[in-house]
């Protein structure tokens, strides 16, 4: 890659950063500093705006670059992977979006704590939310470092370290200065850029094949060297029984985890009513589904047009499939159009990382300030404004994420996204569903359900092949591997549900009928919703 498109890409990065910083300053000019404003952006976004923001929050660089790369190298297995990310939205739409909007104020713990003895439940739900967010954040930070190095062609350790620090500093500025309002606008801008860029590339791929999808698939299969196997499942996830079971586990985590991701749940508090929350979920299903359909075309397009050898040479995981495809579609490395398209794709990838880390940081700072700090603060200690604590928490989380991102920058952390979904599905979803739908649910059940999903998920990962005992592990030198699967979801999700049930039936506290009535009436009608 020559210097031309890298200079242009850097220029576009800078424009995006300048625009987003401008948005942050603009929205914080008349800042009232209320909790409503900081955590929920004033709750007056329209369904369409929030739908774009949800899509911007949800589609990370792992999807934008990783999914087409996966499809370009492994064919159909990439499609298999991506379907889970979309189907998950039906769980969000049917069971979570409206009810959570009606019952909660800012976080997931609000929904659960309103029915239960508040302190232990808040601490449990806050802990698991922060855990999910930090896992997700570290994956994004490490990804940011390697991605920018890849796109700019500077693979030196210094450039990667500075990228991680720069991304971390920017996200802290966005979140602590602008709160939810700035974060939402950044995600809207990012989602619009991403959809625009993807539509242009998809149209160019289709034009190249004269609209003949059959021809596109056949060419891709032929160039891949796998023939018809490229268009059927099995190239990546079709190894031995363990590998197949591992994929089923990942699929389960993806489908059930989305509805437990704190940064996704908190997005539904930014609209005025449950009906608006439902419509924003519909918007995001349309946008995310459309995006993934186009990503599939881009993946097969990259296999057919660029070819797997060139892709593997550039990046073994295929993460450069979309930028290389853009370069080729524009007319090659020496053409102006190719340079521009490459730079646009690189800038969109960068915007994606910034928007996602900002959203996750905001959600975790809300959990720290609204759930953990409010519950753990010593009685009698001077009460600080919750928003001030949340801003400080955003800085703290930023520092932790930068530090972990730097420490882990040479490690293989690709499993972290799947793990974050697995923890969300095992610790957050059971407690949320039980609180909304189970009349007899008690405080002990809630606490057990959170820890009963969180602890097994984390412990199983420690003893899994991603940490030790295989050449690709975090610590390849040692071997304390006991659990065969990389993703713990298939074990830990049932455990989370089981623990919640067990805690409830063994608890001496009778379920509070009136509180259940309140939750049920509020969740379905919106009475008393803020």
């Amino acid at each position, binding site marked *: 890659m020559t210097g031309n498109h890298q200079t242009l890409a850097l220029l576009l990065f800078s424009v995006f950063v300048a625009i987003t910083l401008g948005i942050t300053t603009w929205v914080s000019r008349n800042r009232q500093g209320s909790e409503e404003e900081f955590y929920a952006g004033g709750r007056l976004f329209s369904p369409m705006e929030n739908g774009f923001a949800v899509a911007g929050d949800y589609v990370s660089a792992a999807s934008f670059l990783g999914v087409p790369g996966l499809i370009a190298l492994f064919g159909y297995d990439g499609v298999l992977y991506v379907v889970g990310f979309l*189907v998950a939205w039906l769980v969000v739409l049917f069971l979570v979006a409206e009810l959570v909007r009606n019952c909660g104020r800012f976080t997931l713990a609000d929904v659960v704590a309103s029915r239960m003895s508040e302190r232990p439940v808040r601490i449990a739900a806050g802990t698991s939310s922060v855990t999910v967010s930090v896992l997700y954040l570290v994956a994004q930070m490490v990804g940011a470092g390697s991605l920018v190095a890849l796109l700019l062609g500077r693979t030196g350790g210094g450039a990667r370290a500075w990228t991680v620090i720069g991304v971390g500093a920017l996200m802290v500025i966005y979140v602590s200065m602008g709160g939810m309002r700035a974060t939402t606008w950044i995600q809207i801008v990012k989602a619009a850029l991403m959809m625009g860029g993807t539509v242009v590339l998809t149209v160019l791929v289709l034009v190249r094949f004269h609209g003949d999808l059959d021809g596109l698939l056949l060419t891709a299969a032929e160039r891949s060297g796998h023939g018809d196997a490229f268009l059927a499942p099995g190239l990546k996830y079709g190894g031995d029984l363990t590998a197949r079971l591992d*994929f089923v586990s990942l*699929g389960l985590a993806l489908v059930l985890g989305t509805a437990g991701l704190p940064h996704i749940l908190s997005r539904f508090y930014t609209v*005025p009513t449950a009906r608006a929350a439902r419509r924003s979920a519909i918007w995001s299903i*349309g946008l995310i*589904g459309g995006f993934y359909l186009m990503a599939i075309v881009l993946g097969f397009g990259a296999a057919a047009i660029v070819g797997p050898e060139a892709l593997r040479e550039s990046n073994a995981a295929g993460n450069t499939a979309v930028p290389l495809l853009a370069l080729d579609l524009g007319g090659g490395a020496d053409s102006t159009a190719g340079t521009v398209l490459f730079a646009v794709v690189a800038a969109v990838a960068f915007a994606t990382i910034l928007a996602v880390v900002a959203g996750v940081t905001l959600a975790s700072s809300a959990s720290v300030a609204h759930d953990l700090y409010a519950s753990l603060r010593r009685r009698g200690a001077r009460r600080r404004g919750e928003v001030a604590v949340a801003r400080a928490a955003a800085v703290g989380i930023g520092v932790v994420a930068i530090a972990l991102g730097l420490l882990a920058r040479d490690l293989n952390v690709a499993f972290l996204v799947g793990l974050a979904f697995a923890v969300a599905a095992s610790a957050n979803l059971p407690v949320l569903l039980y609180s909304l739908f189970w009349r007899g649910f008690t405080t002990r059940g809630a606490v057990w359900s959170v820890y009963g999903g969180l602890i097994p998920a984390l412990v199983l990962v420690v003893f899994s092949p991603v940490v030790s005992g295989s050449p690709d592990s975090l610590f390849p030198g040692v071997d304390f591997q006991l659990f065969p699967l990389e993703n713990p979801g298939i074990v830990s999700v049932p455990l989370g549900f089981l623990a919640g049930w067990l805690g409830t039936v063994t608890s001496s506290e009778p379920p509070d009928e009136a509180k259940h009535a309140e939750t049920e009436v509020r969740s379905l009608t919106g*009475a008393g*919703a803020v």
Partner: protein
Amino acid sequence: MQFSNGRPLEGAEDMRYRDPWYDALASGWGEGDGPAVPSAPVPAARREGRTGPAGGTAAAEVYLEVQRSAAFQEVRSRYRRFVVPAVAVFLVWYAAYVVTATAAPGFMARPVAGAVNVAMLAGLGQFLSTFLLAWAYARHARLRRDRAALELRWDTQELTRGVRDGVS
């Protein structure tokens, strides 16, 4: 809120047009602008008739009372009658897809037409069923639940407000 005084107890058919939050902020995907088909009327929570409770647990009493009202039970069962089968359908359909793809890749590789095989059709089917179910849910909620839920919301809020002010 603007309904606090002089609102008729029943027959608030026009409610959605007076609700400040009900502005069409943006046209939703999959939600046509056609006139809402009036759903079967739902009795109001207030029809139950209640004597004013007093004391600290009064607000809790209101929620219990609303929960027991025929109006609320109707809204809840409409929600559940749609959501429970729909969740079962898409979870089973997704599980079948993933398990077939991992356990029987040979079946998934069976060609159908040109480059298209069973796996491609199943994958596209997942996208299509997701879009369709989302659209059906939005339509069902808009036509069958929204108006009744909104009336219950204002009724409940007025009841709790009455309790809080010590007026019944």
